C-alpha cells in the first residue's frame, strides 16, 4: 500500500510541470476566451473601455456577416480537398518508399523535408513559383504560352487560388503523413503477404485486401491529423493569398480564399473587434470538436481488431 502511494506521488511529481503548463497556457486562456466572447473586450485604452457583458451580440453579429459564412464554406471545401489529396499522395508515397526502390531512404527524407519549412516562408516561396516561375515557363516553351497570360495566373482567380492552397498544403504535409503510413505498412505481417502470394493474389489485391485493412488504425490518425490541420490552416493562407482574390457573396464584396482562422484573425486585429473574433474562435472550436469526434468514431468502427 505504502509502495503504491509512493508510486502515485512520483507519478504526480513528474506530471506536475506539464500539468501546470497545460493549465496555464491552454485551460485558463480557453475559459477566459469563452468569457470574453460574451463581452465588449477590446484590449485597448478607448475612451469608453469598461468591460461590459453584451450577451450573444458577438455570436449573432458573426452569423450575420456574409464573410464569416463564406469562410465557413471555403474552409470546409478546403478541408475536404486537402484531406483527399494529402492522404492519397501520402499513401502513394509511403507505398513507393516501402517497395524495393533503390535510394528509398533518401526519398523518405526528401518527401519529409517540406514539413520542416515554416508555413509563412513556404507561402512566399510558392507565391514566387505561381507568380513568376510558372509564367516564365510560358515564355520559354511556346506550347505553354497560355501560362504567361495574366488572366491565367493561378493566384488571380478564386478557384485556382484555392487549388493552389491545396497544392501547397499537400506538398507541405504529405511527407509527414507518409511517415505514419510507412510505420503502418511495415507493421503488416509478412506472412499474410506470402500466404496471399501463394494463393495467387495480385499486388493490387494484396494492397486492397491486406495492406489497407491492416493499416486502418493509421487511417484514423491520419484523417484526424489532416482534418484538424486543414481546418486550422492559417500561415500558408496569409502568405500565399492573404485571403485574396476577392469575390462577391450575398451581394457583398468579400475576400475569396479567407479561411476561418484568417477570418478570425482579421476580425480581431484588422476590424479591431477582439471580442467578436473570440466569439468566432469559440464557434470554430465547437464545430471542429464535433466534426473531429464524429470522424474518430466512424474510423474507429472500421479498424480491425487483431
Amino acid at each position, binding site marked *: 500500500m505504502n509502495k503504491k502511494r509512493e508510486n502515485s506521488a512520483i507519478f504526480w511529481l513528474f506530471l*506536475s510541470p506539464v500539468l501546470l503548463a497545460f493549465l496555464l497556457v491552454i485551460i485558463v486562456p480557453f475559459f477566459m476566451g469563452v468569457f470574453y466572447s460574451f463581452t465588449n473586450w477590446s484590449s485597448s485604452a478607448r475612451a469608453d473601455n469598461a468591460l461590459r457583458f453584451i450577451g450573444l451580440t458577438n455570436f449573432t453579429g458573426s452569423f450575420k456577416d456574409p464573410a464569416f459564412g463564406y469562410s465557413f464554406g471555403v474552409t470546409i471545401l478546403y478541408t475536404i480537398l486537402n484531406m483527399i489529396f494529402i492522404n492519397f499522395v501520402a499513401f502513394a508515397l509511403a507505398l513507393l518508399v516501402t517497395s524495393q526502390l533503390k535510394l528509398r531512404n533518401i526519398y523518405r527524407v526528401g518527401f519529409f523535408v517540406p514539413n520542416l519549412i515554416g508555413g509563412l516562408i513556404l507561402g512566399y516561396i510558392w507565391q514566387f513559383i505561381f507568380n513568376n516561375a510558372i*509564367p516564365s515557363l510560358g515564355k520559354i516553351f511556346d506550347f505553354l504560352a497560355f501560362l504567361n497570360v495574366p488572366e491565367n*495566373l493561378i493566384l488571380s482567380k478564386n478557384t485556382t487560388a484555392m487549388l493552389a492552397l491545396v497544392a501547397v498544403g499537400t506538398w507541405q504535409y504529405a511527407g509527414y503523413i507518409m511517415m505514419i503510413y510507412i510505420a503502418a505498412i511495415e507493421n503488416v505481417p509478412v506472412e499474410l503477404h506470402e500466404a496471399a502470394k501463394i494463393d495467387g493474389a495480385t499486388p493490387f489485391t494484396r494492397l486492397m485486401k491486406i495492406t489497407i485493412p491492416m493499416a486502418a488504425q493509421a487511417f484514423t490518425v491520419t484523417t484526424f491529423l489532416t482534418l484538424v490541420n486543414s481546418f486550422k490552416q492559417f500561415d500558408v493562407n496569409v502568405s500565399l493569398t492573404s485571403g485574396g482574390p476577392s469575390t462577391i457573396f450575398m451581394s457583398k464584396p468579400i475576400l475569396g480564399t479567407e479561411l476561418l482562422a484568417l477570418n478570425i484573425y482579421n476580425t480581431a486585429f484588422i476590424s*479591431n473587434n477582439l471580442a467578436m473574433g473570440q466569439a468566432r474562435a469559440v464557434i470554430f472550436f465547437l464545430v471542429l470538436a464535433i466534426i473531429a469526434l464524429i470522424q474518430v468514431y466512424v474510423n474507429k468502427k472500421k479498424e480491425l481488431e487483431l
Partner: protein
Amino acid sequence: MKKALLVLVVGLVAVSLFAAGGTDANAGGAADAKAGGGKITLMQNKPEIDPMLKAYSAIWTKANGTEVVIKSIGGTAGGIGQQLKADYAAGDMPDIFAFDGIESYKEWEALILDLSAEPWVSKTAVAFKKDGKVYGFPVAVEGWGMAYNADMLAKAGIDPKTLVNLAGYKAAFEKLDKMKAELGVNSVVSMAASVEMGWVTADHNFNSLLSNGLPYGDLSVTNALLAGNVDDTRLGEYADWVELLFKYADKGVLTTGNYDSQVGAFATGKAVFLHQGNWTDPNMKAANATFKMAFAPHGSMKKATDGIFVAAPSFYAINKESKNVAAAKKYLADLVATPEGNKYMVTDAGMIPAYSNVTLQPTGMLSQSVQSWAAAGKVYSWNQYNFSSDFRQKTLIPIYNQFATGQISKAQFVDLMKKAFIANKK
C-alpha cells in the same frame, strides 16, 4: 516518505515559478541601477529604420543615462496594433508607441499623453492634433503621387506639367502605350491591387477621392462620405481615374504582384509610372535605378489638381501611465533639437524631417521631389485614416480587387462603392 515527496513537489513548482518570474525582474532591476535613469521602451512600425534607431538610441543613452529599448513591428496594417494589444493585455505597454491616425488614436485615447507644451510643437505643421491639443509627435513627412521616370517622359515628348487631370493622364498613357516597345517597358503604370497590396488601393489611391483638389486639412468630402452622402460626380470622375490606372497597368503585377514586383517593375525601367510614395527611395537605390524620377499629381478629377499627398505617416505617442514620462519627452524633443537626432532622422534613416529647424536634406530623388512639392505649398492631406481599418480592409480592398481582376464593370464599381459608404454610415 509521502509527505517529503509532496513537499518536494510543491517546493519544485514554487521554485520554478519564482525563478521564471524573478529573472525578468532582476534583469530589469540591474538595468535600472546601471542606467541610473530607468528605462523607456519605444515601439514603432518601420522595421527598415530599426538599426538606425537603435544606433541613435545607444548614443542618446550614453548622454542621458536612460536605457532605450526599441521594438520594431512591421507588416501590414494590423501589425503594430496587434502587438500593442497583446502587450497592453499583458500589462507591458511601451512608454512611447507609434499610431497612424484618428482611428488608431481612438483605440488608445485613454492612454495618450497631451504633448501640447513640448518644445517641438512650434516647429512642425503636421503634429497629430485633436480638439486643439497635440497628442502625436510626427515621425517624418511622407508623400505619394504618381512617380514617373523623367527620362522616358522626355523621350516620349511628354511634359510632366500636363499630368494634373484625367485628360492629361489619358493622353499621356495612350501615347506611352503605343511606344512601349520603343521605351522597352512592359506597361505604362506599375500598379498593385491584389489583396496583399490592398493598402495601395484602399488607403493611398482611395485618398484621391477624399482629398484631391481640396485645401489642406479640408474634411468636407470625407465627412460627407462618412455620413453616407456620396457626390456622384466626384465618385464618377474618380472611377474613371481608377479605370485608367488599371487599364494601363501590367495585369500580372496588378492582380497578383507584391511590393517587390510592383516597385521592381519601375526601378528596373519596365514601367513609366509607379503608384507609390517616397518610401521606395531605398528600393530604388538597391536596384541601382539611376534615371531621373519625380512625382506628378494624381489625375483623379477633370479639373486640374496641382499637388501631391503629403503628411506625417505615423506619430509617436507617450503613454500617460509610463514611469518615465520625463525621459520619454526628452527623448522625443532631442530628436528635433540635437544634431545627432537630426542626423539620425534625415541622413541615417533617410526620412523627410517634419520640423522646420532641421536643415539636413534627404538624398533620395523621390524624397526630394516630395520636399519640393511641400516647399511650394502644393500639398493635399491624407484623409484615408478617418475611415476605420475594418472599412478599408474588409470592404474597400475586395471592391478594388474585383475591379482590377475585371470581374465587375466601372458602373458596378461605382455602385458597390456607393453602397459601401451608405452601409458604413454610423
